């Protein structure tokens, strides 16, 4: 495997074509293959189930052709034994195979595809090169339908009773992207039961789809029939009013849900991990990543169906759990790399080496590489130039290091692919030859020459020469830079003593770090103090009391109640924060901060709330249940109204928790008084994921669910002393009236208005007032500014189990920093030439990271100062500076303008 240079010659010549599972079976791959172009490791492997040699004993075409001698037919599967302190299982899920049901017609026409197949059809790397066409005739479809809940929310054999939690959103995404592909106005329709866009910013996405004319049809599918001549699909469905309707589409996408794989089940069985009724790993709400077996943790869709950001959060939560279990041995097995000593080349004349990459045939097939090499040798300062077959392969890296040493090079240019992916690798190569990693420049002759000028070899070659000339001119001016090191204070400050804050504090304390837990109220607990049960029915008050007990007595936790954060100075590793407790101030030094300031239950100013004692919010109902003296005997009927103050114009988001809370409370009322009539008046029931079981149970136990028309008035008034709820039944389009004894308003979650944390830490909130994470998918607990993290309701509405997971995820990110003595930050930062600075302060205004500010000197002069730890090197300050005092290291005017000048030579 080490020898493979991923040139692809083997795959090209392999005579065996098999179905390509990566493209969901829509096209073929070879028996020797890589899954996809960016695969890691990028090494070809032989699929022994289909390889001709393994089946018939001869062929070996790949072995004969491999230029690196990397093919080894003698290789055997080996068993390895490793000694580990903990195990995390993350086997994921498969998607449902719709062939199980003939209702959907899957397999009867190539134009009925699964949503995963449709992803591949849309993808530029997919079977049709990203061109949206029907598989049957490769023509662009005019009408595409999506069928939701295929294999989910279905109790028939072979399907899953749970909601897969992701399909509503991905169907909307696929519809929007499909419309973008087909600029001629593609007609898209999504056939659904309940539209479940419950995640952060998901509702906005749904509204955007409605605005861009994606049709949403609430319906029950009766069958899909293929017209054999046109290969069009006729969808037969029952609409909400019970009418039978038919509509014809060119293509149908089946939104398939998650299904546990047999491999995952057998892995769990081998490990002795208990499974639940769906064969998913069994967990609890307060310990949602712990399996039944100590030391084995679980994350991802095998824990429960979930989307990417939730999987990422949960993965970090498992890491935090493992870190706390194994804390005492942290670092004992880590291999540290020796950093080569850098040679001081300042003052030396440039001795530049240029390496031009062929990238197999990816570059050399489209431009004249030897000619570019020859040209590079003529450029000023260049003492060496040569070509590489694959610059990124390990052996070439070593060869380059040797050449740099041998030829005494002090600057290097690699003309190859994009610096976005490969610059760090080549910087390491240069460093291994004892040269500062900033004395390096890349020319992207793959993307900018062989890709865009693939039909014109001369032009591609000429442009490659131009790019190499520009890179050489710049590299000769570059100066060595050093990534600044910052010391790390090993304490964390957690702002907010609710469930999230307490969880993060306990985890960090167990990992051996000190946690300051700051709470504004006089007790810990936050919103959780009012919640009755978690969705799976765990006793919240009992668990919360246990956790508060642990936090209060742990030697690594300082609990500061009745305390507010007043001021934050410093940066990652070196925060100095001022807090005030009952009028007394103190300064706390800490390395990281976790914002867990929570959110509030919205209090309505409508529906008789506040004037009528029997009109309550969800949390108020929970508090009644917590009260031992509560009796439901006298209550004959109860109505829950969903989405009070959520999913409206002023608050266009779903509060995520209210549907489940209402269903759970409805069940509780039925349990306390089985004769009570309980109604839930809703827009879409969003009991997502495994919570679907509660919804099913509620219907079975006689809770009546009625969808109301949101566009028509929902009125609550008094009639002869009784509460009266009147609304329009969506299905019947008729007014209905209920006179309940108890009215429950699912009022949703609202952010803390003008949360002071936003200005104290200079972090952003979104339009709804929740904090904005660094990346919605991949960095869901971090901010763009290093060392500041977010967890719980301050980030967006979420239930207890997910808040706890996010708090643990934040603790994991915190420990990655706290466990180090020093961290390095990027050397490409701004600098201010004090001689030219006039102290106008425009740079301070322009800086998005709070990294540059005016300082007053002893003589009263104002001078700009850069805090390197906060600077991201974006150059905003340099762009606004009127005198040229501010510039960015590595990209100053001289270094950039010389390239411009050289380009026109």
């Amino acid at each position, binding site marked *: 495997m080490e020898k493979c240079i991923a040139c692809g010659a083997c795959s090209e010549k392999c005579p065996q074509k098999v179905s390509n599972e*990566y493209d969901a079976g829509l096209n073929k791959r070879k028996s020797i*293959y890589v*899954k*996809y172009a*960016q*695969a*890691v*490791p990028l*090494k070809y*492997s032989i699929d022994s189930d289909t390889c001709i040699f393994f089946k018939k004993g001869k062929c070996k075409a790949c072995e004969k052709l491999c230029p690196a001698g990397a093919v080894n037919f003698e290789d055997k599967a080996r068993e390895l034994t*490793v*000694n*580990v*302190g*903990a*195990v*995390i*299982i*993350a086997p*994921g899920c498969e998607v449902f195979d719709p062939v199980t049901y003939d209702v959907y017609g899957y397999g009867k026409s190539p134009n009925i595809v699964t949503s*995963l197949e449709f*992803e*591949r059809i*849309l*993808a530029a790397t997919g079977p049709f090169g990203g061109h949206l066409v029907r598989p049957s005739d490769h023509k662009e479809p005019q009408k595409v339908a999506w069928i939701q809940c295929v294999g989910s929310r279905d109790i028939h054999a072979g399907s899953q009773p749970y909601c897969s939690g992701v399909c509503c959103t991905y169907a*909307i*995404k696929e519809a*929007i*992207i499909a419309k973008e592909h087909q600029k001629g106005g593609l007609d898209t329709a999504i056939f659904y039961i309940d539209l479940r866009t419950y995640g952060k*910013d998901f509702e*906005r*996405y749904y509204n955007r789809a409605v605005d861009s004319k994606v049709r949403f049809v609430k319906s029950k599918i009766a069958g899909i029939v293929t017209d054999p001549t046109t290969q069009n699909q006729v969808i037969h469905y029952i609409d909400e009013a019970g009418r039978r309707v038919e509509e014809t589409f060119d293509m149908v996408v089946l939104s398939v849900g998650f299904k546990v794989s047999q491999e995952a089940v057998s*892995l769990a069985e081998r490990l002795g991990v208990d499974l639940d009724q769906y064969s998913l790993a069994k967990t609890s709400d307060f310990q949602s990543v712990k399996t039944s077996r100590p030391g084995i943790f679980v*994350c*991802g*869709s095998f824990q429960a169906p979930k989307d*990417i950001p939730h*999987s*990422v959060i*949960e*993965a*970090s939560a*498992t*890491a*935090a759990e*493992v*870190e706390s279990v*194994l804390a*005492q*041995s*942290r*670092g004992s*097995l*880590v291999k540290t790399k020796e950093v080569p000593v850098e040679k001081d080349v300042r003052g030396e004349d440039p001795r530049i080496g240029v390496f031009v990459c062929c990238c197999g045939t990816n570059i050399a097939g489209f431009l004249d590489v030897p000619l570019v090499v020859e040209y590079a040798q003529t450029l000023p300062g260049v003492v060496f130039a040569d070509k590489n077959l694959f610059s990124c392969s390990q052996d070439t890296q070593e060869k380059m290091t040797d050449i740099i040493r041998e030829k005494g090079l002090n600057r290097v240019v690699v003309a190859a692919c994009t610096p976005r992916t490969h610059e760090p690798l080549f910087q390491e190569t240069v460093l291994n030859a004892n040269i500062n990693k900033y004395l390096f420049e890349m020319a992207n002759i793959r993307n900018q020459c062989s890709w865009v000028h693939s039909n014109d070899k001369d032009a591609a070659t000429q442009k490659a020469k131009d790019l190499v000339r520009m890179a050489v001119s710049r590299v000769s001016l570059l100066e060595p830079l050093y990534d600044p090191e910052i010391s790390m204070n090993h304490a964390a400050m957690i702002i907010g003593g609710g469930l999230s804050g307490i969880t993060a504090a306990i985890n960090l304390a167990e990992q051996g770090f000190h946690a300051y837990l700051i709470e504004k109220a006089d007790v810990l607990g936050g919103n959780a103090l009012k919640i009755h049960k978690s969705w799976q029915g765990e006793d919240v008050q009992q668990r919360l009391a246990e956790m508060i007990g642990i936090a209060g007595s742990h030697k690594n936790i300082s609990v500061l109640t009745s305390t507010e954060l007043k001021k934050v100075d410093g940066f990652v590793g070196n925060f100095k924060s001022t807090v005030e407790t009952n009028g007394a101030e103190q300064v706390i030094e800490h390395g990281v901060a976790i914002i867990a300031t929570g959110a509030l239950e919205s209090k309505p100013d409508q529906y008789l709330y506040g004037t009528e004692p029997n009109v309550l919010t969800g949390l108020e109902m929970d508090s009644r249940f917590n009260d031992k003296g509560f009796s439901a005997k006298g209550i004959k009927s109860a109505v829950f109204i969903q989405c009070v103050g959520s999913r409206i114009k002023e608050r266009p988001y779903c509060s995520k928790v209210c549907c489940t809370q209402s269903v759970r409370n409805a069940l509780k009322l039925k349990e306390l008084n089985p004769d009570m009539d309980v109604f839930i008046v809703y827009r879409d029931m969003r009991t997502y994921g495994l919570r679907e079981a509660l919804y099913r149970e509620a219907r079975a136990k006689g809770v009546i669910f009625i969808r109301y028309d949101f566009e028509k008035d929902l009125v609550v008034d008094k009639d002869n002393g009784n509460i009266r709820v009147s609304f329009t039944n969506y299905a019947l389009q008729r007014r209905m009236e209920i006179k309940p004894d108890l009215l429950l308003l699912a009022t949703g979650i609202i952010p803390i208005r003008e949360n002071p944390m936003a200005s104290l830490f200079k972090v952003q909130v979104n339009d709804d007032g929740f904090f904005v994470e660094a990346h*919605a*998918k991949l960095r869901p607990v971090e901010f763009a500014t290093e060392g500041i993290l977010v967890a719980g309701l301050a980030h967006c509405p979420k239930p207890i189990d997910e808040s706890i997971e996010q708090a643990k995820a934040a603790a*994991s*990110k915190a420990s*990655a920093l706290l*466990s180090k003595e020093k961290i390095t930050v990027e050397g490409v930062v701004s600098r201010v030439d004090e001689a030219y600075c006039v102290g106008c302060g425009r740079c301070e205004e322009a800086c998005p990271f709070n990294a540059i500010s005016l300082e007053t000197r002893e003589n009263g002069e104002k001078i700009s100062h850069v805090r390197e730890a906060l600077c991201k090197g974006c150059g905003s300050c340099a762009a606004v500076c009127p005198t040229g005092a501010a510039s960015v290291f590595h990209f100053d005017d001289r270094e950039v303008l010389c390239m411009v000048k050289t380009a026109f030579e």
Partner: protein
Amino acid sequence: MSKKTVASVLVAGGGIAGMQAALDLANSGFYVYLVERSPSIGGTMSQLDKTFPTNDCAM
């Protein structure tokens, strides 16, 4: 003092969840064995075209 623990972790599954868990642990001072059945890591996410709501490339 309790029994000395081993500072390494086995992560079974190289999809987005497994990779993220492995990265966090490695960044925090633990040695990780990331085990994947297929020839490359990436899992289901690598098959997706774009991700919502930014329509970023899933790769």
